């Protein structure tokens, strides 16, 4: 994980709210619980020993339920909230040590923010809102307006420049919020529950739009959400916060397949796993036959070895050309060689497909699918049984989990 330097690194942040946070810091460090601290000292522990590494160009999702400290955490990045202890390095510079000017410069040029309740200026038009960050930074008016117009166009609000926020729907207002944040051309985008206040359909659209924008913009995005599906959809990495402390940090798949504790496990239980788990992590390595090797004995032996209903046949380049089962031999007479047209046509999927994308192919075949890499080379197979057992949360299927643990893990 440490080849590329982090864009933002959060180092052992503590945040304690109350009259004298420093006085209880040592107790919190020593591991006193949130309720202990509250009852005995009247202080609230907001964040406890949070450390994160966020890489340039990735979307990093911080997820947690309300009260988990996620909004407090994101406000530390641009120092809207100061930590009680700890450091936040942005491009290697500690935000906590910055003077007023340096901090203002950071907020104007390097980090912009999108808010849950949009936080638009109600007395200004869409254009004036989008231009705000540039105006504050003292950028020449015509240039600022031109940049703001481009962003308004980009988020799909062209033609609404002279409307006021109160004339727009929630989704459109948040697009203005996004345009305002994008207009400053800062490399880092902080999004605090940016889509949580929107209707599910609009939220879905906005997520799609963000993913699309991100493909060309490559911003470093810190995204806060309480919605796991949103986290899984958007996040390259996901951090799960509970009571101000990190429970787990990892990719969506890592978190789903290997929850760090019961809390995370309960969280991910209701997730549509087929949208997250990739073919690569459920592939079973199995032997494929060369066309010349195909005969009733080798096919029967292969099927017995793998326990599957067919065995794949590959060409010299290890590309699948078909699947063989006993039926093949009813089509050819004993003496003549087996040719590709005698085989079932190959059904291939790639390792980076998620299970959901694979299902339609699987539904129409009663033999396993061939898993191939990007060059089309055979890697192994994936069967219905493996697929189903992966989709069932492991908490209820300890045996399946055991069996899975023994299976090779793809990639």
């Amino acid at each position, binding site marked *: 994980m440490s080849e590329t330097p982090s864009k933002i690194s959060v180092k052992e942040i503590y945040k304690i709210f109350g009259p004298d946070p420093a006085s209880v810091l040592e107790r919190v460090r020593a591991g006193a619980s949130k309720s202990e601290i509250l009852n005995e000292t009247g202080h609230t522990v907001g964040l406890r020993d949070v450390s994160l590494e966020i890489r340039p160009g990735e979307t990093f999702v911080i997820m947690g339920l309300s009260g988990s400290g996620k909004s407090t955490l994101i*406000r530390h990045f*641009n120092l*809207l909230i100061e930590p009680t202890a700890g450091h936040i390095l942005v491009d290697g510079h500690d935000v906590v040590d910055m003077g007023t000017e340096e901090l*203002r*410069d*950071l*907020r*104007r*040029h390097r980090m*912009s*923010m999108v*808010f*849950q*309740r949009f*936080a*638009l*200026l*109600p*007395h200004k038009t869409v254009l004036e809102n989008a231009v*705000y*960050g540039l*105006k*504050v*930074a003292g950028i020449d008016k015509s240039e600022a307006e031109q940049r703001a117009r481009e962003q308004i166009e980009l988020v799909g609000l062209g033609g609404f420049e002279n409307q*006021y*926020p*109160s*004339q727009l729907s929630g989704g459109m207002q948040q697009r203005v919020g996004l345009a*305002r944040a994008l207009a*400053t051309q800062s490399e880092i985008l*902080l999004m605090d529950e940016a889509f949580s206040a929107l209707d599910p359909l609009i939220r879905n659209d906005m997520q799609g739009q963000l993913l699309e924008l991100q493909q060309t913009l490559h911003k470093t995005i810190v995204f806060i959400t309480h919605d796991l599906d949103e986290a899984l959809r958007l996040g390259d990495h996901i951090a799960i916060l509970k009571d101000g402390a990190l429970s787990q940090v990892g990719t969506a798949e890592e978190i789903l397949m290997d929850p760090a504790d019961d809390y995370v496990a309960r969280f991910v239980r209701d997730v549509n796993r087929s949208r997250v788990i990739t073919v690569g992590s459920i592939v079973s390595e199995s032997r494929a036959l060369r066309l010349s090797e195909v005969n009733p004995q080798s096919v029967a032996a292969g099927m017995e070895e793998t326990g599957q209903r067919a065995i794949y046949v590959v060409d010299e380049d290890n590309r699948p050309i078909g699947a063989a089962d006993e039926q093949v031999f009813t089509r050819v007479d004993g003496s003549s060689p087996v040719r590709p047209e005698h085989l079932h046509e190959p059904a291939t999927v790639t390792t980076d497909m998620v299970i959901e994308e694979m299902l339609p192919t699987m539904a129409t075949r009663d033999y396993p699918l061939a898993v191939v890499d990007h060059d089309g080379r055979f890697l192994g197979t994936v069967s219905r049984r493996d697929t189903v057992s992966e989709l069932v949360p492991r908490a209820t299927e300890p045996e399946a989990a055991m069996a899975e643990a023994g299976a090779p893990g793809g990639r």
Partner: protein
Amino acid sequence: MDSNFPELIESREIRGTIDDGFNWVVIEFGEALEIAFLPVLRFLNSIENALLWLPWYLVVLLLALFAYQATRSAKFAGGTIVMLFLTGLFGMWEPAMATIALMLVATLLAVIVGIPLGIAMSRSNVFQGILTPVLDIMQTLPIFVYLIPFVMLFGPGKIPALLATIVFAVPPVIRLTNLGIRQVDREVMEAVVAFGATPRQRLFSVQIPLALPTIMAGINQTTMMSLSMVVIASMIGAGGLGYQVLQGIQRLEVSRGLLAGIAIVFLAVIFDRVAQAYGRKMQQHLHLQK
């Protein structure tokens, strides 16, 4: 027995000290203050003279236009004409113009002093803590108590009347400026800070514009309070409609008091409506109504 509160200290002595102290202030600074406020007096007089110099029908017309421009209601503009016309018919034209001039100048000065104080109050909790009880005292202290020191400093006349009016009328504009700024949506303020706005940029681009409707409500209250104070201040030489009421009391003339009283109500209605309409317009202009 114990029905009398024991005389633990010489209260007469305390009063004496206060009086002596204030007398000293009057002797030392009275003249300087009088000179300092001379421009204000000239300003006030010129407004009053202008109102009286203009033909009465033009004043009526101008005020009616002003009322129409604010409220966009022909009915109210017509009402304004009728009310002002009646005021003239009652023989209250001259005192009414004096009252309007004093009220306008008092309100203007109260706003000039009040808005910066309100802004300062919104930025510092300590200052708010200090100023709040002072404003409470200013609003609850019987009005007549203000009159004494101002009369001593300036002698009876328009300046002490004006100053007493300002002291009495300024609290609402201070309070509501403070309130308006503090009520600005926390998340909006957070956003503005997150985009790197300086405190000055925050104040002028967001806080004041968004607080304006509340500030306007404060200005409206200040206008009404200065109108009511202008009447009482006539006791120390402000003249105007209040003086007619005062004369009604002194001469036991019910009619004079009543007619002057009605004229005061007319002015109150006109200025209240106009100020309220401006508040609403401001809100619409800022697109604050959902």
